[in-house]
């Protein structure tokens, strides 16, 4: 994941600028033919960079192509995923994605057909709805009004910026600005020429006055034929006699050469190149190159400063990319899905894990393969269970056998006790008999003093014992 994220960052940095510029160029080129055609009508002396907004039709219907607008800054989330520009008349799908109306309708005519370009969900849509049909038939509908309000509030530059207009304002007010107040909007000149014809040349509002701005007069400096419209351009770029004095070397040059002179005049006063790092010095370019630049600490450090600045801006860029990525990921998490459109690597869906803990939905997204595997596991478990059952019954039998043996054991023990008791009684009897015999014997010894015939029989008795 890390590697992919890094790659993404890098690529984004690299392609974004180019893609945007290309997009703009494409959009601009689509609107181009009409404006170049119009500019051909205007006098040859008009300033060359004249792309901008022209009012040729009636005031009520002045079409403004919002797609050619230049935004001061674009919050990424307000961009249509198709045209990559802030939403214009946003529409939302039932799957929750938002596009410009024209973009999504154009998509329906493309090979993708009636599907959401982000998650490919089928969308029902009919361009011309019949009155009899159900009202909620369409799966796309206007986005919440707040979204239009936010995008309409985005700051844009005037379409006449290249003609010199500095206006910046909310998008909703651009039309009003262009039609009613912008000095650089061009209108057809309505003054009548000598022959009774209407002039008709497209002219910026600031030149329109009581007289036709296309009336030629002689340039006060060089005598060349000019008019009000071309005067500014003429004095700055063409007139050879419009002199301007240089503050450094006190020599006079025509205005058109002045810029190039300023870039090489040795006497002109300039600021130290280290001024952005804090050097206050100013003086002629001569002194700068010969003395100051070898002394100034700021100049010496500027290399280091530049390196630091480059690094810093790299980091800022990187940070921005990472932030945007995090917000995209958070978005997809809150929406409950990770779309991996365009990437062949499968992203793990976080929601799936939650689902697996809910037994009711466990089988929702099972595929055939998974099903077969599960069935096999079930079979294995069943045979295991059977084997265990037979083992259990065997165990029961063994247990009975053991209790039988134990019972028998107790019986034997009892019997043994009886035997021991019998034995001890017999021993007592014998002892009693032995005592009896000793008594008899002592009697015999007493009698031995007087010998008796019984001696032999008592000797036999002893022998027997």
């Amino acid at each position, binding site marked *: 994941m890390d590697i992919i994220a890094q*790659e993404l960052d*890098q690529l984004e940095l690299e392609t974004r600028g180019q893609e945007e510029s290309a997009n703009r160029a494409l959009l601009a080129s689509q609107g181009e033919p009409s404006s170049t055609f119009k500019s051909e009508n205007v006098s040859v002396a008009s300033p060359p960079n004249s792309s901008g907004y022209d009012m040729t039709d009636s005031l009520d219907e002045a079409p403004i192509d919002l797609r050619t607008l230049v935004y001061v800054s674009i919050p990424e989330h307000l961009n249509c995923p198709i045209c990559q520009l802030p939403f214009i008349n946003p529409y939302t799908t039932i799957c929750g994605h938002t596009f410009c109306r024209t973009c999504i309708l154009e*998509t329906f005519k*493309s090979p993708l057909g009636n599907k959401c370009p982000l998650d490919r969900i089928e969308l029902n849509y009919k361009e011309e709805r019949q009155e009899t049909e159900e009202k909620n038939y369409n799966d796309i509908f206007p986005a919440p009004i707040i979204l239009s309000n936010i995008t309409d509030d985005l700051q844009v530059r005037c379409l006449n910026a290249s003609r010199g207009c500095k206006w910046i304002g909310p998008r909703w007010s651009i039309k009003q600005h262009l039609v009613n107040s912008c000095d650089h909007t061009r209108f057809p000149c309505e003054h009548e020429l000598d022959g009774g014809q209407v002039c008709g040349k497209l002219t910026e509002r600031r030149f329109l006055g009581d007289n036709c701005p296309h009336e030629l007069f002689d340039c006060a400096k060089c005598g060349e034929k000019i008019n009000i419209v071309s005067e500014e351009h003429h004095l700055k770029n063409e007139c050879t006699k419009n002199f301007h004095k240089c503050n450094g070397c006190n020599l006079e040059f025509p205005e058109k050469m002045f810029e190039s002179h300023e870039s090489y005049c040795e006497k002109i006063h300039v600021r130290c190149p280290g001024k952005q790092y804090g050097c206050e010095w100013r003086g002629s370019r001569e002194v700068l190159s010969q003395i100051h630049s070898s002394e100034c600490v700021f100049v010496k450090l500027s290399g280091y400063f530049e390196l630091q600045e480059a690094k810093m801006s790299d980091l800022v860029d990187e940070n921005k990319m990472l932030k945007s990525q995090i917000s995209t990921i958070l978005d997809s998490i809150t929406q409950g899905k990770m779309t991996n459109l365009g990437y062949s690597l499968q992203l793990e869906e976080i929601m799936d894990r939650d689902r697996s803990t809910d037994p009711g939905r466990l089988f929702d997204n099972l595929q055939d393969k998974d099903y077969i595997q599960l069935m096999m596991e079930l079979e294995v478990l069943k045979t295991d269970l059977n084997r265990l059952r037979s083992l259990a019954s065997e165990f029961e039998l063994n247990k009975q056998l053991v209790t039988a043996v134990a019972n028998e054991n107790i019986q034997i023990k009892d019997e043994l006790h009886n035997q021991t008791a019998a034995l001890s009684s017999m021993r007592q009897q014998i002892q009693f008999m032995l005592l009896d015999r000793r008594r008899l014997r002592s009697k015999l010894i007493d009698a031995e003093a007087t010998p008796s015939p019984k001696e032999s029989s008592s000797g036999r008795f002893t022998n027997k014992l």
Partner: protein
Amino acid sequence: MSLPKRIIRVMPHEDNLRYFNVTIDGPSGSPYEGGKFKLELFLPDDYPMLAPKVRFLTKIYHPNIDRLGRICLDVLKANWSPALQVRTILLSIQALLSSPNPDDPLANEVAEEWKSNEQNAIKTAREWTERFAQ
């Protein structure tokens, strides 16, 4: 933290802003590692409703890229969506270099080799990268 290595470069053509010169570095861990592959990318009139046309200019040994440089990738054909961009398409192509798919081939011989003797095929891809993509 240093900036990641530059991996894909895109430059619009001077004469035609719809035409781009693209260079993709072979992804690390693939037999194309170390190679720099040149591609051409063209945005048709109906872009973004139609997919951009992309073709390899550098010779490459890959089951989904034929010898004319044409690429077999779903998002370039049937699965194109107007919400995709040049950026996402080029990322997909780079991912295709990381994971060749011989089961959906465009260059049949390469795909056969890939299936029957993958070791050898990867070796050939590496050789081609060294020979043509430097």
